C-alpha cells in the first residue's frame, strides 16, 4: 500500500490519498492520470492491468486501486 501511495503522489502531488474516497467524482483522477498511474503500477507491481479494469469503481480511492492490483496479481 505504501508503494501505491507513493506512486499516487507522484502522479498527483499534493493530494492526501489516505483520505480521498471519490477520486473520479472529485476530478482528481481523469483518463490521462489513470493511464499514467496504470503504467507505473504495471511497472512496479509487475501486473497486467487491462482496459477492462479501467472502470470508475476501481479508481474511487487508494484502497480500491490496491484491490484491483491484488486481483490482477491473482
Amino acid at each position, binding site marked *: 500500500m505504501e508503494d501505491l501511495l507513493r506512486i499516487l503522489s507522484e502522479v498527483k502531488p499534493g493530494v492526501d490519498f489516505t483520505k480521498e474516497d471519490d477520486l473520479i467524482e472529485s476530478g482528481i483522477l481523469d483518463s*490521462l492520470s489513470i493511464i*499514467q498511474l*496504470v*503504467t*507505473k503500477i504495471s511497472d512496479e507491481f509487475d501486473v497486467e492491468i487491462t*482496459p477492462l479494469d*479501467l472502470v470508475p469503481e476501481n479508481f474511487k480511492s487508494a484502497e480500491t486501486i490496491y484491490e484491483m492490483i491484488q486481483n490482477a496479481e491473482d
Partner: protein
Amino acid sequence: MTYASYLYFFAFVFLVYMIYLIIPVKYRWFVLLAAGYTFYIVLNGFLTAFLLVTTVSTYFCGKQIGKFQEGFNAKKKELSKEEKKQLKAVVTKNKKAMVGIAVLINLGILVFLKYYNFFAGHMTRFWRLFGFSGGMPVLKLILPLGISYYTLQSIGYIVDVYRGKYKPEQSIGKLALFLSFFPQMTEGPIGRYNELTPQLVEGHKYNNADFSSGVILMLWGFFKKLVISDRASFMANSVFNDYQSYSGTVIVIAVAMYTIQLYTDFSGCIDIMSGSARIFGIKLSENFRQPFFSKSVAEFWRRWHITLGGWFKDYVFYPVSLSSPFMKLSKTAQKRFSKFFASLIPSAAALFVVWMGTGLWHGASNKYIAYGLYYFGLILLGMLFEPIAVKIFNKIKLDRKGKLWSGVSIVRTIILVGIGMMMFRANYVMDFVHMFLRMFTTQNPADIFNNTVFSLGTDKHDFLVIFIGVVIMLIVAILKEKGRDVLTTAATGRIPLKWTIMIGLILSIAVLGAYGPDYGAVDTIYAQF
C-alpha cells in the same frame, strides 16, 4: 428535413407507443424493433442493407467469441498450468481474429463510404504533383443514416464481448434492436449494450412519470431547435458563406451565433430523442452536461457529446495506451527523459490518436482533422504548462478552485471552444484562417448599430427571441448544475406546474418557432455525420 417531419416524428412516436401498450409486455420489444426498421427503411430505403450487414456480422462474430471462451472454460479445469497457458494463448488469438473480422467489416464499410473520396482526392493530387495524369476515380457514395453511430455501438459491443465484460447476445433480434432503436438512429447518443439492451427488451408498462418526463423533454428539445437554433443559423450561414464581406465584429457575433446554433441543434435533437425513448420507459445515456460551465477544454469534452468521448476513451485511448508498443514507448521515455516528460510523451502519443480519430469521425475533410488537432494541441499545451501554472498560482497565492479563477477559466474555455466552433463551421481550413485574422484586423463596432448585424437573416426580433431563449436555458442549466433538474421536477411534480410548463413550451414553439413562409427548414447538423 422539413418542419412537417417533426410533426411526423411526434405522431410516429405516439403511434408506436400505442401499439407498444397493446402488445403483451413480453413481446413489446418486437414493436421497438419493427418501429426501428420501419423508421430506417422509410428514411434510407435500400441502404438498410448496410445496417443488416453490420447486425449479422456483429451477431455471428460475438457468438463465435462466446463459443471460444466457453470451450476454454470447459477444458481449463482438466489442464496443467502450462497447458492452460498455451490453450489460453490460442483462444485469445482466435477471439482476436473474430474481433478483427467484425471491425474490418463494420469499420471497413464506414471508412469506405465516408472517407474513400477524401483519400482518393488526396492521392490523386499527390500523384499529379509528380507530373502523372489520371488518379483514383471519384465514386458516387451515399452514407447511410446513422452509420457513424451504430458502427461505434457494434464495435463497442464486440470489444466488450472479447474482453469478457458480458456474454454475447444469443438473440439476433435483440442485437438488431440494440443497433436500430429508432430514437438513436439519427444522432445518437452512442449506447452501450449492457446499459441499453436490458431496458429495450424488458417491456415497460405505462408509467405516468416517464410519460410526462418524455413529453416535456421532447418539447424542451423542440424549443431549443425551433425557437433558438434555426433562428441563429440564418446569420451564421450568411457570414460563414461570405466572410470576406464582413468586419471582424460581425464575424465574432456570427461565431457566437453558430456556437448557440450548434449547441441548441445537437442538444435539442438529443433531448427530443431521449424524450421519445423516455415515453417508453427507456433512459438513454446522457450526452450533454452543461458544457459551457467547463473550466478547461478537457472538461468541456467530458461534458459535450459525452457518449462519443466515452467511446473513444474506452475503445481507443485506454487500449492504445495499454498496448505493448505504447508501454515500450513509456519505458523508453522513462529511461531517457525526466519524470515529467516520461509520463507526458506516451500520453501525448495516445491522445494524438484519439483526437485524430475524433476529428475524422466528424467527416472526411481537412477542416475536421484540423478541428481534432486543435483540441489535441490545446490539451497538450495544458499538460505542458501545468507545472509552471502550479508554481505561479502558489507564488501569487491564488486559489485555482476559488470563484474568481473559476470564472476566468470558464470565460477562457468558452473563447477557446468558440474558436473551435469557427473551425468546425468554416467551409475550408483557409477560410477559418482568414476569418480568424479578420477578427483582429477589421474590427468595426459600428456594425452593431448601423443595422449590418441585423440584416443577415437574423433580425432584431430574432436576436431578442434568441437572447430570451438563451437566458431561459442558462437558468435551467444553473439549476441543474446545482442539482435541481427543473424538467424532471416539472414532470413529476404537481399537475398545475406540469401543465404550466408544457403549455408554456407548446405556446413558445407555436408562437416563436422559426417556421412558416419566412423561414427555411434547417437540417440537423449531427445527422450528417
